[in-house]
């Protein structure tokens, strides 16, 4: 039982990378399909649809960042990797916002981006609006990133 703290902390880090990464993989896959469809018909739109394709990929990067910060904080990447169960559970909880919100926001953002790519196929000059619609979903991924980031960095200072 004495080692369970580090187990939970690593589990949290893994979930942040895993779920946010999976969401981004699904999302970028969806937008990639739509982008390929548009480029098949009109190769000149490659640059425009590429930007929209990449948007759901950011959640995976945020998840990686949180995982990396957590591993660094708990000493897995150097230093002592021992901690209480309570602290391990706190790290686990700190990673959850990024893991869960990252997964869902990537997929929902992908749907908006796909719609944006379709819009660009008909009205290339409206690409900016398509990006804004998709970026709205990004807001919630950023909020989750902030919460996870603040929590992961703050837990280390707690004396539990």
């Amino acid at each position: 039982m004495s080692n369970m703290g580090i187990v939970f902390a690593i589990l949290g880090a893994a979930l942040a990378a895993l779920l946010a990464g999976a969401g981004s993989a699904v999302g970028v896959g969806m937008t990639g399909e739509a982008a390929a469809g548009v480029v098949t018909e009109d190769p000149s739109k490659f640059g425009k649809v590429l930007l929209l394709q990449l948007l759901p990929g950011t959640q995976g990067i945020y998840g990686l960042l949180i995982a990396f910060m957590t591993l660094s904080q708990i000493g897995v990447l150097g230093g002592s990797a021992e901690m209480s169960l309570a602290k391990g559970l706190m790290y686990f909880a700190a990673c959850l916002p990024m893991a869960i919100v990252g997964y869902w926001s990537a997929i929902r953002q992908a749907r908006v981006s796909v719609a944006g790519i379709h819009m660009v196929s008909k009205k290339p000059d409206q690409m900016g609006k398509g990006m804004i619609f998709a970026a709205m979903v990004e807001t919630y991924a950023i909020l989750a990133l902030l919460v996870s980031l603040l929590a992961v960095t703050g837990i280390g200072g707690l004396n539990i």
Partner: protein
Amino acid sequence: MADKQYIYQVARIRSKEMELLTGQNIQQLLASDSYDSCLRVLSDRGWDVSSGDADTILAIQRQNTWALMEELVEDISVFDVFLYQNDFHNLKAAIKQVCTQEHFQDIYIPDGTVEPQQIEQAVSQRDFGALPPRMQKAAQEAFTALLRTGDGQLCDVIIDSACLAAILQAGRDSGDALILAYAELTVAAADIKTAVRCQRTGKELDFLKRALVPCDSLDAAQLAAAAADSEEAIYSYLERTAYAPGVEALRQSSAAFERWCDDLMMQRIRPQLHNAFTIGPLAAYILARENEEKTVRIILSGKKNHLDESAVAERVRDMYV
């Protein structure tokens, strides 16, 4: 099929929708002073008009549409429902040809799900089992009826009602709201037209009951009873259904009602312009192309025969985009 996502395919269709004729293009065609200037407008929109012949031009467009669908969809049979009418037309033609023991030229429509030669062979050898299950019973029944009675109309009614039943069943089995809506409207419109035609030719209730195919939006029994009564009774029944707005067109002429039905179909499929994930936009594209083909055929034929612009304009359909 309903759960499968068609993201790549819909994206390609979105680009292809740009090539569809718009209402403005149709006005341009109508305003053209000759058949040749119509062809120039179509050529500007990317149509292959090199043959100069309307049938060939439209056949090329149809081939292009189906070639695109074959490229996009792994199992093209999901769109078979749109071709059932051609199959059943070919069955009708084959039965009549075999029964009359004469050979007619160009009686088959080439775009079906079954090769016309296969249908003709099955009918001539009385091997109805060689036909798809949806055609077997009707083929046998119509063939026997025509041989025994020599009544071509009865043969038509048997095959037409089997065709509509097959379309409705395919729509229900598809799991796609748009294909179901297409099937439902196709059957309902055919029922209404049949009811009016039968009423005008004084058909008996039994004949009507056989000819009309039950569907969700119309009560075939009530429609048959109304048709056996009077034309006004048909209108009065339709006023209580979803087809009430079409009654005025029906009073004008069957051509006006057909146009109303086609416009209604376009209206129902138009939301697919904003659907990004399902097979709906692909099916809508096929229907939009069919609608476009119908309208261009009317205009080209009007121009070729020097018909009055207003007479042609009355028959043109609303476009999808």
